[in-house]
């Protein structure tokens, strides 16, 4: 799942080297935190969150296959 988000994000942004995905597991739930360069935020979120929501939809399919739930948050770079 982490690899999926990473793969998508890296091909959408201008600065692939700044793409980071953190995976936080708890029971059946996987929380993924995607962080990208500040000027790439728009690319992974999209208008009205369309890109992020689409990534979530794909993530959901991947998670279901593992019998899990997954959420995705896009966070500001630290």
């Amino acid at each position: 799942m982490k690899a999926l988000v990473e793969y998508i994000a890296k091909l959408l942004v201008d600065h692939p080297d700044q793409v980071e995905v953190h995976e936080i597991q708890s029971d059946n739930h996987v929380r993924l935190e995607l962080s990208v360069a500040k000027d790439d935020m728009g690319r992974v979120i999209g208008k009205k969150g369309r890109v992020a929501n689409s990534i979530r939809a794909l993530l959901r399919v991947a998670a279901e296959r593992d019998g899990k739930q997954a959420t995705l948050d896009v966070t500001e770079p630290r």
Partner: protein
Amino acid sequence: MNEKPTLEIIAPTVEEALTQGLAQLGLPAEAVSLEVLDAGTKGLFGLGGRQVRVRLTIKSDDDDEIAAPASAPYSKAATEKSSKIQKKKKSKQKAKGSATKEKGTPAGILNLVEETVSKLLFHMNMQAQISAEYAESDREGRKTIHVDIRGEDLSGLIGRRSETLNAFQYIASLMVGKEVEQWVHLVVDVEGHRSRREDQLRRMANRLSEQVIKTGRRQVLEPMSAGERRIIHIELQEHPAVITESIGADPYRKVSIIPKDS
């Protein structure tokens, strides 16, 4: 000369490898012998998955003149000199032609589409066969690329009302578009699902327009995505007695079929 000319090809299936190899060499199947070096891992595509690796060896009666694998069908009859020139030309062409990888060329884009889609599916834990091809260009001359995904257990990829499939299509378009620096319009279909749905929508459009004519009252369809609404609009755009319009806001936007003389 040295060893026999050979060409190694990596592709999803043995057949594809053979086809690709023959196309590159410009030779008929009888002119080469095929050796499967690696049978690959079944169903796994692209990244991580092992593809099939084959070696084509060019059979030749009088050996010599057919040299580098990149050189070509015609060199046989040629004298050494001209064959060398030809070889050069050919290899140049090939460098360009392995433009399969080169950005921007139609073949390059198709390849990139297939690669991107298979990697996405791989990361989603799905095994499938992918083929991409250009559709007829539409009115604005834009070229749509149709991607067909086939495999078992792919219903999860479609989702409710094709929502997941639309998301997949959107993301894949963006990824490819970013890479080639132009918007690439993809239509991704799973096991013919979209085309079945398209037929269904067309039939529904025609059935409902008959009702509209009979009753003289408008009919409002269920909410649909932009692509599905478009199919209905196009189906009825030349209808003599009804017009269509979309009402409401996404995601509940729907098509309304209206009698013309109202």
